[in-house]
């Protein structure tokens, strides 16, 4: 039972349907940035997206080919483990389902990896069936580098550290291998509705 903090009260009137805000989160109109290191700036002519690991044949798309793949426009709410949620964000990108059609694999997991060395692990069942994208536009404009451009993962049903910025590829794996924040005490799965922030939550 939490102690009452006398004199503390809600200051921000809920400006959004509370059923859209997971426990412990607050809604912001801003788009805060959280990264562990400097923002990479990879020129598009050097950029490619690769699927490798436990696949019969790795596959790689240069930028021009990648943005020519069938794309989708997604409007969704996003939730950061640092407590902010942002509602009705609009993205354009390629569905992970579309990308995985290009490979044969029996893997059940994958690691998304990024310029700058960031990684995060995901179960295949969390990124298939229309749940995950590689997004390259935000709000109708090219994705800014500080928000993960040229392209980032978009997996809105998990805390946003799973939506790796500056993503360059997916490595499919037979076993679940913890990524960057997952080895530093953050939750392996990261479901905001279950408030899976840290290990053991």
């Amino acid at each position, binding site marked *: 039972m*939490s102690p009452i*903090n006398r004199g*503390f009260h809600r200051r921000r009137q809920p400006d959004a349907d509370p059923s859209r805000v997971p426990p412990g989160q607050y809604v912001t109109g801003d788009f805060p940035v959280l990264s562990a290191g400097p923002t990479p700036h990879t020129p598009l002519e050097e950029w490619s997206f690769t699927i490798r690991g436990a696949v019969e044949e790795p596959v790689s798309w240069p930028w021009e080919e990648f943005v020519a793949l069938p794309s989708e426009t997604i409007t969704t709410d996003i939730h950061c483990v640092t407590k902010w949620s942002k509602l009705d964000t609009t993205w354009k990108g390629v569905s992970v389902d579309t990308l995985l059609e290009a490979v044969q694999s029996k893997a059940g997991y994958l690691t998304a990896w990024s310029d*700058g060395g960031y990684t995060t692990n995901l179960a295949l069942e969390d990124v298939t069936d229309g749940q995950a994208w590689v997004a390259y536009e935000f709000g109708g404009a090219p994705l800014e580098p*500080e928000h993960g451009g040229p392209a980032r993962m978009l997996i809105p049903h998990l805390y946003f550290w799973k939506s790796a910025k500056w993503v360059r590829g997916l490595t499919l794996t037979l076993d679940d291998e913890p990524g960057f924040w997952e080895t530093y005490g953050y939750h392996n799965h990261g479901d905001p509705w279950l408030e899976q922030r840290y290990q053991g939550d």
Partner: protein
Amino acid sequence: MARAALSGRLTWQLAEVVDVLTETPRVKTIAFDVADWVGHRAGQHVDVRLTAEDGYQAERSYSIASAPNGTRLDLTVVRIADGEVSPYLADELKPGDRIELRGPVGGYFVWEPPQGGPLLLVAGGSGIAPLMAMIRLRAAAGSDVDTRLLFSSHGWDDIIYREELERLNGNGLTVVHTLTSSQPPDWTGYARLVDAEMLAEVGPSPAERPRVYVCGPTPFAEAVSEALVHLGHAPRGIKTERFGPTGG
């Protein structure tokens, strides 16, 4: 000990206020005693939870400003005028009050004396908090590791921990301030935003492969880390912690 804690569940714990210190007109440090605190590493943070009488709860993250010190924990809080949590923490809490917190959280933006140096710490405003934990730990451990702190504040009276930093300056710690909005009449130090030239003057050079920690508002952390990469520092040697203006 902190590592062991992270392998289990981070439970909410009661933290009792033991002291409230005024750092600057907008900044207070609140010292807590947490009976079952497992210890922390310099640079880690905690989640704080407040509960209103109607059951409404709000959570925020705060860096720990104190070096590991038994069951005591210092959080430095900037009062954000239209914030929800920070005005309560900064203005309402008195010794004897209790709030909930859990942690320690984070294991990347940390430094411990065995990691050595040289260290380059770059702070913007209250971004000093986790870096102060490192500076305090360094002093408490008797470490003389070459450490440069470049600290950006608006004005002289906005410098958090100013007197303590003056005391700690020396023994391999060099404290350099830049005052970006206003300067005292006799000020001879930097009076502009942190830039590549300033970072190069404060050093250490990229050839010395310093461990670099940058903490401040997002535009500050972006600009500083970009300038460091431009100077030739290895991107993977630069650890950043950023916070937005909506922390409340």
